[in-house]
């Protein structure tokens, strides 16, 4: 694969406010990971119950329990990861990170508040997320409540160097021949 990240898009973005698309895709990836792990957990629990009791566990009969478990799991998923590294799995993939509004590392308290207020951004058709698109600092409601911001943590410069290093040797030779041909004759 030879993809050249455009310089104007990639250089010097570390620490800048992350945009709506990166955040949305990261959130979607997180929801996928969260739901996948939750389903795996329930399947594992059902399997364990069948091994012990000999009867399969029907979660459909305990919707309140499964919903509570999902809420608790969601809280742990987001709060723990934000408090630990400032990023969730989805955010790590997209190269973005949660920091305090002034740029310092996010604290456990801020992570917990951010997680608890995250659902508030969904009310009224997700109006709380509009700040990411139109806000000066690209912050959603839960960012304002927790005093946090989301920035790019991806080292785009290193990505560009990787791309330069992995260029096709034939392309490099062609390029060097072209350079020699365009150089003026010293005589």
């Amino acid at each position, binding site marked *: 694969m030879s993809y050249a990240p*455009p310089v104007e898009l990639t250089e010097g973005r570390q620490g800048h406010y992350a945009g709506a698309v990166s955040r949305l895709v990261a959130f979607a990836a997180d929801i996928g990971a969260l739901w996948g792990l939750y389903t795996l957990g329930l399947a594992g629990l059902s399997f364990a119950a069948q091994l012990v009791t000999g009867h399969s566990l029907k979660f459909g009969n305990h919707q309140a329990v499964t919903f509570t478990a999902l809420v608790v799991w969601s809280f742990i998923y987001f709060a723990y990861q934000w408090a630990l590294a400032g990023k969730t799995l989805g955010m790590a993939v997209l190269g973005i*990170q949660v920091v305090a509004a002034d740029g310092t590392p996010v604290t456990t308290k801020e992570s917990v508040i951010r997680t608890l207020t995250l659902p508030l951004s969904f009310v009224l058709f997700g109006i709380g997320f509009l700040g990411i698109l139109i806000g000066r600092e690209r912050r959603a409601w839960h960012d304002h409540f927790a005093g946090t911001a989301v920035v790019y943590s991806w080292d785009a410069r290193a990505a560009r160097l990787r791309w330069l290093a992995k260029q096709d040797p034939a392309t490099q030779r062609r390029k060097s021949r072209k350079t020699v041909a365009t150089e003026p004759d010293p005589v």
Partner: protein
Amino acid sequence: MAPNPISERIESMAQAIAERVVNLVMDAIDIDALLDGIDVDRIISRVDVDKIIDRVDVEKIIERVDVDRIVERVDVERIIDRVDVEKIIERVDVNAVVEKVDVGRIVDQLDIDALVEQTELGSIIAKSTTGVASEVLDVIRAQGVGLDDFFARWTNRLLRRNMADLPLGPPTLVSDVASGPGNPVTAADGSAPGARP
């Protein structure tokens, strides 16, 4: 009043006698013997040299000196042969010199991309990465940044807002000071933050 003729004659006679006497005395004196008898060192010791120097206009003397002509006569090669360069280098405070060098400015002038393409550094970087997985991530992230910019551009256009007036990021991350170890982005990624475009 009319001049006295007697006194005039006496005066001219005295003049003639004096001239004659001086000539006779000069013939009789041995000048060399007289000079030998003079203690020049004693005279010099009495001379106040500082006072003489004070009265000399040095600037005027320098103006008259043809420096180019003097330099032409100097054998520079011979002087250089005599200079002990190693001894001079030993006396140079290299740390003080290095402190004065603006390394950032030198680095700014380097074409890092060209350097990576032409040296083994590129292959070293390539080997140090995880290969295809990192490239896929680079692609996804670059696309994300591109789309972020696209939406940000259109939003700002609709809101009639100048992008240059908007803050790039949190103050501690986008300022030059942020490139230190206190940068949470750096600490989490283990990589240095990028400079402002």
